[in-house]
């Protein structure tokens, strides 16, 4: 085997490994909480089990979480959330599937907050809606911090609020996402 062939083989192997390298980031413990502020009461719930994979090559991102894993201050509220509003038995998950635009501008070496625009489809209670939101990413030694906040309207996702509790539940609910993504090793 001549030297040229050997070198090109090595380069190819190297490229192959590089192609497979840490271009994807993930978490299984993403934090998602929501906040509803209405005249009669404020409601907050949190979920620490969101799964997310972000592909830095294409900018594609996917998030999935279990509705039943949201925890509330009041146990009964949590029961009603699952039973009456979200019907988590029928629709166990909420998902987001989309793209972070201009992801190639992300500089992994710069350990500071960089802002991007994410667009995609948010699916809650089986109802899909196009959404876009601004996302901040901060690469660091302990992983990449990803943060975003957006608004969800219950009526957009077929979540019916009866008149008796109309003043207890906000028409626009703020959703906060905080994730620490780690390189996905294979």
């Amino acid at each position: 085997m001549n030297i040229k062939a050997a070198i090109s083989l090595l380069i190819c192997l190297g490229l192959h490994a590089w192609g497979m390298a840490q271009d994807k980031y993930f978490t299984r413990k993403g934090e998602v909480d929501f906040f509803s502020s209405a005249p009669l009461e404020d409601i907050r719930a949190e979920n620490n089990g969101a799964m997310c994979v972000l592909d830095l090559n294409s900018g594609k991102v996917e998030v999935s979480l279990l509705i039943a894993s949201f925890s509330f201050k009041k146990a009964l509220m949590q029961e009603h959330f699952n039973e009456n509003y979200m019907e988590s038995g029928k629709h166990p998950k909420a998902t987001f599937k989309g793209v972070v635009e201009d992801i190639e501008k992300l500089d992994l070496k710069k350990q500071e907050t960089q802002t991007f625009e994410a667009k995609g489809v948010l699916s809650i209670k089986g109802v899909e809606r196009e959404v876009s939101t601004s996302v901040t990413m901060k690469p660091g030694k302990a992983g990449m911090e990803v943060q975003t906040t957006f608004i969800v309207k219950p009526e957009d996702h077929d979540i019916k609020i009866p008149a008796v509790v109309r003043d207890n539940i906000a028409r626009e609910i703020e959703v906060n996402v905080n994730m620490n993504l780690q390189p996905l090793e294979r």
Partner: protein
Amino acid sequence: MINPLKLGAALLIFCASPALHAQEEEESLLDLLGDEDPKTEYATASFKTTRIVNSHSLENTHHGVLDVKISHRFGFINSGVYEIFGLDQASIRLGLDYGVTDWLMVGLGRSSFEKTYDGFVKARILRQSSGERKMPITLSWLSTMTINTLRWAYPERVNFSTSRYAYAHQLIVGRKFSEGFTLQLMPSVVHRNLVATADDAHDIFAMGAGGRLKLTKRIALNAEYYYAHPNQLDAGRRNSLSIGFDIETGGHVFQLHFSNSTHMVEKGFITETTGNWLDGDIHFGFNISRVFTVHRPKPKPVNY
């Protein structure tokens, strides 16, 4: 000497393979994380509240939650217009239930019927679940004690305070069969320290059955029935049958029902029911349940 053409082709395929990988991943990025850890999902909201009508349901008050219960039974509806179909009379029970943990609840109550104080402990032994840990039923143990505080009928006699006590023990075995349908069985025993006549039994065994049918998200139809073999019951006593609706509005549950029992604790409705449904000896009544979160348990760490 290796054929450079062949080598080139092999390299091309090799180098192109990441691209092929990328194509496969079009499906779902989340698949890369592998299968999710199996989780145990517990059946919740089998009933709207911890009572069916008079009887305990298989639900427990959540940890740290205080449930204030106000229950009324009006007079018999066959008492006519003069009594405005029973609405002029009322038998009342005021109660407080508390969830010590998610599986243990305790409660106290005071009924106007025989000026009775009652206390109970209810422990959930098995919990219906699916997923990693599968359990087809929920099983609970209920023990109640009642103290009648009416003035002694014969104060000149030697009276023992223990004569006022009665106990009831019950197993509750139930299953939420579907989103809208729950059924439970309640084998029960009632013990009375003092009975009225020598013919009356101290221990009465009864089998109860209760269920819930959800009509809408917030309204459910409940029913319960207790069968005790007639020769066990005191003369003139009947089996208890109750049918009612649960209406839930956030923190409140309103239960509106019809029952032939006046008493609202186990010892009373299992052994001291006198009404006959067929004669119209039916009480209209309601329970109001209002829950307060008085203590918030620390959320359990989620296992990944």
